[in-house]
């Protein structure tokens, strides 16, 4: 079972663990469990342990899931930043196009905008490489514009800072989230912690 969609973890409200079927793991639904199994051999849930241990197990996993959800939110913000960058460049290139009336500008703009839209779409499946590529492309383009016209550094500075921050934070969390998802699947919950 995908731990990110485990209904036990996704259930809201007070934790009330009531195991009706002893042969099926309450947490990961592995079956059949042996009568002698105190812990589920697939996920380590204390199927025949104390209620306190069972609650502790679920709470620890829930905490991990909440942190993963928060990280996915910041990856989502990085995705929005990529689309935001696409919009920013679209506006920028349209303004330059109307000023210069140059086909080169519109072709270049189309390439740059499609690149960022592509990164945004890619980030839904593979966030880390998409955000990394987006961050480097964004930084490179801003550096080029700064050399061509130093005053361009200050144009839309707030948007640039917001996009940069979201991409840098998203890059960090994209990697962390992947690592924590692995942890959620394999990591043992220490039932003796805090005792």
């Amino acid at each position, binding site marked *: 079972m995908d731990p990110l969609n485990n209904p036990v973890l996704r259930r809201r409200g007070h934790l009330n663990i009531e195991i009706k079927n002893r042969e099926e793991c309450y947490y990961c639904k592995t079956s059949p469990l042996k009568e002698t199994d105190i812990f589920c051999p697939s996920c380590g849930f204390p199927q025949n342990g104390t209620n306190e241990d069972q609650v502790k197990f679920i709470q620890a996993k829930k905490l991990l899931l909440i942190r993963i959800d928060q990280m996915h939110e910041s990856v989502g913000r990085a995705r929005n930043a990529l689309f935001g960058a696409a919009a920013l460049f679209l506006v920028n290139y349209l303004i330059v196009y109307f000023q210069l009336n140059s086909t080169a500008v519109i072709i*270049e703009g189309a390439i740059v905008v499609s690149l960022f839209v592509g990164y945004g779409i890619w980030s839904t499946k593979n966030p880390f490489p998409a955000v990394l590529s987006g961050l480097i*492309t964004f930084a490179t383009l801003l550096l080029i514009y700064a050399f061509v016209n130093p005053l361009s550094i200050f144009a839309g500075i707030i948007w640039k800072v917001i996009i940069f921050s979201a991409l840098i934070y998203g890059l960090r969390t994209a990697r962390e989230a992947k690592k924590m998802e692995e942890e959620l699947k394999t990591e043992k919950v220490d039932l003796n912690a805090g005792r």
Partner: protein
Amino acid sequence: MPPCPNCNSEQDEKARFCSSCGKPLVTRDVVEEMRKDSHQRFSLQRIFLLYGILLLICVILKFTKVEPTWKVMSFVGILISLVIFIFTLLEGNQFFQRMFIGKYRWWMFPLIILAAIAFSVVVDVIANELSRLNNDVFYTYMYGDTDHPVLWSIISIAVQPAIFEELAFRGIIYDRLSPTMDISAVIVVSSILFGILHLSPISLIWLVPIALFAAWLRKKNGHIVYGMLFHFTYNLCFVLRDAYDRGMIFNKNHIIWIH
């Protein structure tokens, strides 16, 4: 399945946790995990540093009012090669072995040369279509003041980039991205970085596919020699085409074939 290392009780074949004490049966090596994690962070820092230095050199050359004379171009070429060479030395002894050891098949060499020529013809057609839009300074013109403009163009446009750009993008960056993402993403990201560093968004149309092909060759064969050959032949075609257009080669008025 061996018994649980903690309580010594018997375990099922597929068990991941001990059914008696709940300890994980496949223990994760925490030190190894931490080492891998810090290696990944270090990998990205090295990529940012290499890319940043190369980017700065290219941006200064392209967007400041430096005249691209053969002296400037040679200096920049040597500087870029030196930077990449220092980074390759930092990768350690085994890096060079990794770059040159792998699958070699004799028939791949002519095939890659043909592929590079075909690529260059397609790109030439596209670039000609966009020629009105492209204001790049062209090859042999920059080396016109030298005694052997075509020869110098071949060395600085075809030989030097084929060796050092391949070492940087299909070597260092490719290797350092590998532990952080799956291999198809490594191919795409390294190719995008290669394309963007050329500082011409319009050129991305052909630069990214070329880099994708070179990175795919690296993945399939394990070394960068095919990529170098492809890169060299591709760039050589443009230098020769440019030299031909300027009447410097294959010209019946010239006794020497390449002067």
